[in-house]
C-alpha cells in the first residue's frame, strides 16, 4: 500500500504546554488508523494540525507529495484532507438533506457567480449534489430523517450525519474525532460497520477514539499518544501487548485499554 499522508516531527506548543511533541508516522492509502491515548494526550490537537486548523510550532504534514501544514482548512479540504469534529459536527439549523447537500461544496464546478445567475452548469451541479446527497443519506441509514432538522436528531444519528457531511466532500482522508462517543453498544457496532463501509468506498480513515473494543476491532494500525508524544505504533494485537501503552493507561484512572 502506498503512503498517503506523512506526519514529520509535528509539535504544537500552547504557551508552556507541549500538546503535541515531535510526533511522526505515516498513513497508508486505504487503511483505518486509530490514534488513542488518555484524556489530554493531544489527539484532537494532532487532528487539527493535520487538517490545517492549527499551525504547527514545528514539523510538517505531507499529503501526496505536497506540504499541507500551515495552509488554511479549506485548502486542505480541497486537497482531500477533511476533518469532522469531536463536538458539534453539523449545521444545526438545516435539515439532514440540506446539511449533506451543502457539504458537496468542494465538488462544485460552477463559480459562485454562476450559482447566482443560475447557469446551466450551476443547475447541473445542484442536481448532482441533491442526487449524491440522497445516496449518502441512505448509505448512512438516515433515509427516514431526511427532512428532519439536524438539531432534533438523536445522538447516534448525529454522528452518522457528521460522517455523511465528511463523505459528501469526497475526501481522500477523513479524520473522525470520537465518532462513537456517547453511543451504546449496538449503536457502536453499527457505526463500526459504517466506518468499514466508508473505507470500502476508497476513503482512508484516521480515527480518534476512546472506545477500546471498537478501536481494536476496526483499526488496521494504531498510534498511541501520551502527554503529546508518540509512545507506540502498530497493529492492534501489538498495541495490546505493549508495556509502555499498558503503563500509560494504568497511570490514568478512568481509562481502560480493554484487555
Amino acid at each position, binding site marked *: 500500500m502506498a503512503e498517503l499522508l506523512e506526519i514529520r516531527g509535528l509539535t504544537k506548543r500552547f504557551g508552556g504546554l507541549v500538546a503535541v511533541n515531535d510526533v511522526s508516522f505515516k498513513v497508508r492509502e486505504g487503511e483505518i488508523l486509530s490514534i488513542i491515548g488518555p484524556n489530554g494526550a493531544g489527539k484532537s490537537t494532532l487532528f487539527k494540525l493535520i*487538517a490545517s*486548523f492549527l499551525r504547527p510550532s514545528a514539523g510538517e504534514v505531507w499529503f501526496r507529495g505536497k506540504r499541507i501544514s500551515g495552509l*488554511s*482548512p*479549506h485548502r486542505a*479540504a*480541497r486537497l482531500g484532507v*477533511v*476533518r*469532522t*469534529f469531536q463536538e*458539534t*459536527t*453539523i*449545521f*444545526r*439549523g*438545516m435539515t439532514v438533506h*440540506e446539511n449533506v*447537500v*451543502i*457539504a458537496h*461544496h*468542494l465538488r*462544485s464546478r460552477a463559480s*459562485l457567480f454562476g*450559482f*447566482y*445567475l*443560475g*447557469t*446551466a452548469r*450551476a*443547475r447541473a451541479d*445542484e442536481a448532482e449534489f441533491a442526487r449524491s446527497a440522497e445516496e449518502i443519506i441512505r448509505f448512512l441509514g438516515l433515509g427516514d430523517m431526511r427532512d428532519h432538522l439536524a438539531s432534533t436528531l438523536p445522538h447516534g444519528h448525529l454522528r452518522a450525519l457528521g460522517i455523511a*457531511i465528511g463523505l*459528501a*466532500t469526497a475526501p481522500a482522508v477523513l479524520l473522525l474525532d470520537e465518532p462513537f462517543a456517547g453511543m451504546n453498544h449496538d449503536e457502536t457496532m453499527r457505526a463500526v460497520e459504517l466506518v468499514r463501509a466508508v473505507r470500502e468506498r476508497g476513503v482512508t480513515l484516521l480515527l480518534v477514539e476512546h472506545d477500546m473494543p471498537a478501536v481494536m476491532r476496526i483499526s488496521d494500525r494504531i498510534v498511541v499518544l501520551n502527554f503529546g508524544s508518540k509512545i507506540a505504533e502498530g497493529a492492534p494485537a501489538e498495541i495490546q501487548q505493549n508495556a509502555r501503552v499498558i503503563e500509560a493507561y494504568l497511570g490514568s484512572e478512568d481509562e481502560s485499554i480493554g484487555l
Partner: protein
Amino acid sequence: MGLGMQSSLRPGAVIGVAVYVAVLFVLVPWAIAASGRTDLYYTLTSVALLSIASAGVWLTFFIGRINIGQGAFSLAGGYVSAILVARAGLSFWLALPLAGLFCAAVSVLVGLPILRLRGVYFAMVTLVLTEVARLLALALPITNGAKGMVSLPLPGGVKLLGVTLIPDFATLATPNRAFYFLSVALMSLCFAAMYRLVHSRIGRLCRSLQQNEELASSIGVNIASLRVLAYSISSFFGGVGGAIFVAVSQSIYPSSFTVNDSVNFMLNCFLGGLGYVFGPMLGTLVLYFGWDLLFQTGRFQLLIFSSILIALMLALPNGLLSLRPFGWRRG
C-alpha cells in the same frame, strides 16, 4: 438576472411582486396626488433609502455578525458622491455607483481583520467605525469639517443618442417625486438582488457560515473571503443609500449619519425578522412611522417607543414577518 429565476417563481410570488409594484409605483403616487400630501414623498424616500442600508445590515446578520456600523458606510457613501459631484464635477449617476464601490472597497480592507471577530466583539468594533467615520469627516480637509457640504447640485439628466433617459432633476417641478421613484426602484433592485443571493448557493453557504464556521471551512468553504464578500455587498448598500440621501437633502454633515442611525439600521432588521429577506424593508417602514406617530406623546416618545419595541421583540423574537401576513414561507 436569472435564467433559473423564472423556474423558481411560484404563482403566489408573481402576484406578490405585481401587487408590490402596483402599490409603490402607481397607488402611492396616485394617493399622494389625490390628497395633496406631497411631503409624503420625502418621508417615503427616506424609508426606502434607510431600508436599503438596513438590507446591508441584514446581510451581515446573515453571516452571523451583528453590524452596528452601517452608518459609517452611509456617511462615507454620502461624502464620496458629494465630493465627486461638487468638487470633481462628475455626474451624480456615475458618482452613485462609485460611492457604493468605494464603500465596498473600504469594507474589504476593514473587514479582512475585523470579520474574524464574532459576537459582541465584532459589534463593538463596528460601533466604533461609525464614530471613526464621523471624526474623519470632521478632520479631513476635503469634507469641509463641521460646516459640511451644502448647496449640492441636484442630479443632472442622462441622454443617450438624443433620447432623455433621466431628466435633469433641477428642471423638474417635483424633484421629490423623482427621488421617490429613484429610491423605490433602487430599493426594489437591492432586495431582488439580495433575494436571489440568499436563495442561491451563496446564500446557503452563508447560512453554513452563520451556523458553524469551523465546519464550513472543513467542507472547503473559504470562510474568510465569503465573509468579506457579504460584508462588501452590505457596505455597498450602505454607501448607495447614503449617496442618494445626500442628493435628496443636497447637503451632508459629519452628523448626517450617526451611531443612532447605525443602531436603527440594526433594529429595523430585528423588527422585520432576521429570517426574512424582506424583513428590513418592513422593519424600516414600521419603525420610521411608529416613531413619527408617537411624536404627539412629547417627552415620553422615546420611553413608549422603546417599551413597545422591547415588547414586540419578546412577543415576536423572529420579527414581524414571522406572523406570515401573506402566507409567505420562511426564507
